[in-house]
């Protein structure tokens, strides 16, 4: 990924966003193919989580191009309006009222964090507009009501799988470092339970703040607990920081990281320290499944870079909503009912996605065991680390 490309692409994306937010203008430009159907997106474009909003857009745009080239939904073009919330709850409630009051919006997507998303849930629920969160793994997110849906991979699925991987790798005593947010805390609990049932002992458990950069002292605690493996429940940026520091303080303990570190950025930021890190992912470009390969090829062709998990879930979400709208019609209530009924929508993450109408989540995310080799994520070759 060359930086100059990023620079040159950016104004285009900005112009697109600006054009899209003047919906009347956008509608005029596309008048030939009928009134567009509009999805409202609430997400961070500025502020500390802005990079995730940028990743979403890439996935959204790719999906939209594809859908609209094939005739859109019910013959009408599909588009989105992206409102910047900075993942701030005060702004998501205002955006929620804006979307709810705008009859053009047929379904809402986002927000990024649980803090921001759940603050707005009651507004969407009362107004009968689906709030579709695709990065919301908080166990209570979809409990906000029957209009609150999510295709985010549930940590209740993910963490036991990570624990199983750790068991398969032969670990008996693990130290867990987790991001101290609702996501990390819930994941750490689920991981701990699963590890226990597999006979693995968690000898140290350390939560850290999202803006933490220095882990050296934490690692002394970890070392003193004498684990045979270190588990990271982290995102890619913090996961990379920790992996680097584990190696630079001279610890050779093997690292197992949750699927959320899966990103080309993880390797770029961790450098050599990434080598030998075990991970599992719901999304892996090297995965042979045809739906994954098709997505990766298209993504590379358009952006000239490797897609990551956030790109993939964003893409999946638009494809899913397009399928629902196409089949059940661009109506708020119809979309809610459609989500409960629709079956086997093609999905990069799930293969085929079907909701459980009770939990309003999708179960059965695919996953592959990975290991970093020579600066690249690769499928796990079955070699176990030497543990002492």
């Amino acid at each position, binding site marked *: 990924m060359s930086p100059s490309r990023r620079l040159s692409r950016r104004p285009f994306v900005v112009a697109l*966003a600006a054009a899209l937010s003047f919906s009347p203008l956008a509608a005029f430009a596309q008048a030939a193919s009928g009134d567009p159907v509009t999805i409202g997106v609430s997400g961070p474009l500025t502020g500390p989580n802005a990079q995730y909003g940028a990743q979403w857009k890439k996935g959204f745009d790719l999906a939209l191009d594809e859908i609209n080239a094939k005739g859109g939904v019910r013959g009408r073009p599909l588009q989105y309006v992206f409102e910047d919330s900075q993942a701030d709850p005060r702004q998501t409630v205002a955006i929620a009222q804006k979307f709810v*009051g705008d009859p053009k919006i047929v379904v809402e997507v986002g927000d990024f964090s649980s803090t921001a998303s759940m603050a707005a849930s009651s*507004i969407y629920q009362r107004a009968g507009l689906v709030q579709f969160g695709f990065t919301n793994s908080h166990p*209570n997110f979809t409990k906000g009501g029957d209009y609150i849906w999510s295709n985010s991979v549930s940590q209740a699925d993910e963490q036991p799988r990570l624990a199983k991987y750790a068991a398969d790798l032969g670990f008996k005593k693990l130290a867990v470092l987790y991001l*101290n947010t609702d996501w990390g805390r819930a994941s750490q609990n689920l991981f701990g339970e699963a590890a226990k049932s597999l006979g693995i002992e968690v000898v140290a458990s350390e*939560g850290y703040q999202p803006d933490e950069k*220095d882990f*050296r*002292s934490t690692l002394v605690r970890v070392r003193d607990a004498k684990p045979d493996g270190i588990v990271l429940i982290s995102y890619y940026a913090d996961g990379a920081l920790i992996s680097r520091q584990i190696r630079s303080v001279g610890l050779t303990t093997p690292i197992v990281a949750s699927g959320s570190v899966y990103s080309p950025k993880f390797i770029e*930021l961790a450098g050599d320290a990434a080598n030998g890190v075990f991970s599992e992912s719901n999304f892996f470009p090297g995965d042979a499944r045809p739906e994954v390969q098709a997505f990766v090829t298209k993504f590379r062709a358009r952006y000239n870079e490797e897609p990551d998990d956030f790109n993939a879930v964003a893409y999946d979400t638009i494809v899913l909503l397009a399928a629902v709208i196409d089949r059940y019609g661009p109506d708020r209530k119809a979309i809610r009912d459609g989500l409960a009924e629709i079956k086997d929508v093609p999905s990069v993450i799930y293969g085929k996605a079907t909701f459980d109408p009770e939990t309003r989540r999708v179960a059965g995310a695919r996953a592959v065991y990975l290991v970093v080799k020579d600066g690249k994520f690769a499928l796990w070759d079955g070699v176990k680390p030497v543990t002492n």
Partner: protein
Amino acid sequence: MNSLIDYTVNGFVIGNIYALLAVGLALIFGVANLINFAHGSVYTIGAYVGWAAITFLHTPLPATMAIVVVVCGALGALIERVALRPLQGRARIAPLLATIGLSFVLDQIVQLVFSPDPRALPSDLPDWRIAIGGGSVGAMDVLIATVGVFSAAALYAFLRFTRLGYAVRAIAQDRDAAKQMGVDVDSVNSAVFAIASALGGLSGLLVGMYYNHIDPAMSFQATLKGVVAQVIGGVGNVPGAIVGGLLLGLTESYGIALFGTTYRNLFAFVLLILFLLAMPNGLFGGRKSIEAEPLTGSFIAPSRAVKIPPAALAALILAAFALPLFTGAPYLLQTLTNAWLAGLVALSLTLVAGTTGQMSFGQAGLMAIGGYASALLAVDWGVSPLVSVPVGGLIAAALGTALAYPAFRLRGHYIAIATLAIGEIVALVILNWESLTRGAMGVTGIPPLSAFGHEAVSAKAVYWITLAALAAFAGLQARLVNSHFGRTLRAVREDEIAARSNGVDVKRYKALAFAFAGFGAGVSGAVAAHLYSYLNNQTFDSQLSLLAVTMAIFGGMGNILGAILGAVALVALPEAFRFAAEYRILIYGVVLLLLIRFRPQGLLGAV
């Protein structure tokens, strides 16, 4: 024990980085009497300039460092010339706010140019390490320590032995006298900003290389830790900044050793508070550096508050209450509801900072206390929101005043820093006290506002409730401020010693002002909790405290209508700029800068 050595080494390693940040801040404080909130932004820019030099010009480390020093030095001089010099002679709070506005602008420019994604910043230093205890120290650690100690020594020598150094110290002591003695204050200031910013940029580069990680959001934490380190060392004291940084690093490291990683920042801020209480001049501050003048108060340029005829005021209030009858647009009502809630916080701030002269950067902490108290009462004990909201306000008032009470003997910048720390401590306690607050998971399922079985969930109902609360508070505060109580508070603001010698129990009056303000902010947080139905430790963050300060300044310090106007403007402004999503914060920062420059007494005038 072996690990003790490791924790000590690690404390020094991270302390090194804090020291480097604190030196730049100390230099600027020393001469300009200013906490430079834009220092972290310069630090970030330094890191990105270095990244660009390495990526596009393939410069080796010494050349990269030289480029960063030159670019950031020039940037520092530019900041001083464009944003700060025009504010000379204005309220001392004006340049401080200008640096906050600048930090918004600079951070946002970095983010627009380089994208928010974190980047790798590799260094070409040799990969050798010296084993110490069970750990090791690498080449980058040594380089950072060398730069820190060397720059502090060089600066110390510069201040002590050179002509320009004499000039800097003369200005720090008495600006006007220095000017009369023929010191070119402007160029000295300019030079100091250039040096400090060059150092700040260099720290950003080195720290970025150390972690192989730079991102546009790294600036706020850097400023925060740098400020803590320099207060510990003694504000404005360059060698003190180094010791302060190291001490902070050690405290954090030992804190992690004793209690675990999540307690790290709690230790940092508790250490800060202890220092502010026990030795507010820091380790090296000596006796001289405490400022007798309050931060706001008499330093506000004399301004006449804009008089609003009572009839017009009544019409405005009536119009606000009648609005939902004419428009059903929930988006507009929700935005204004947010503004009314922000207005409550701005009112509370304008009372303590404007009327009483005690600048507070911790209002978000009061909102968090009120919000959590009401939410937990409602969720865990089934208390009706009709009761839990006012109780939340009372708890915020009691706890907030108790926390701030020991800081009441501090003045000027110190009370501002103490309240900033208290705000952070509240958020960290919420994060760590899981058995009560549910920690990072937050409180879910908070019931909506209700009374006697009727739930207030429509946008109109919520609008009226929050507007009524705001109107009630504003009315009460107006009465208080115009009573003998208000006169006493203003007397405390204008001259604390004179007030005390006239028999005013200063601490008691400050406590009353904080309690009233705490109640308002607490109620605002409590109502917000019931509106959002979900709260966690990040709902009320320190950015919100800064926003509250900006609102109060916007309308005019101490001005009740001004605070409300500020809240409406600053909540509505970003919404109005929504079409330019990615430029929103940038525009907001520029507006703030222009306002401070051209109307520092606020739109309606300070009272």
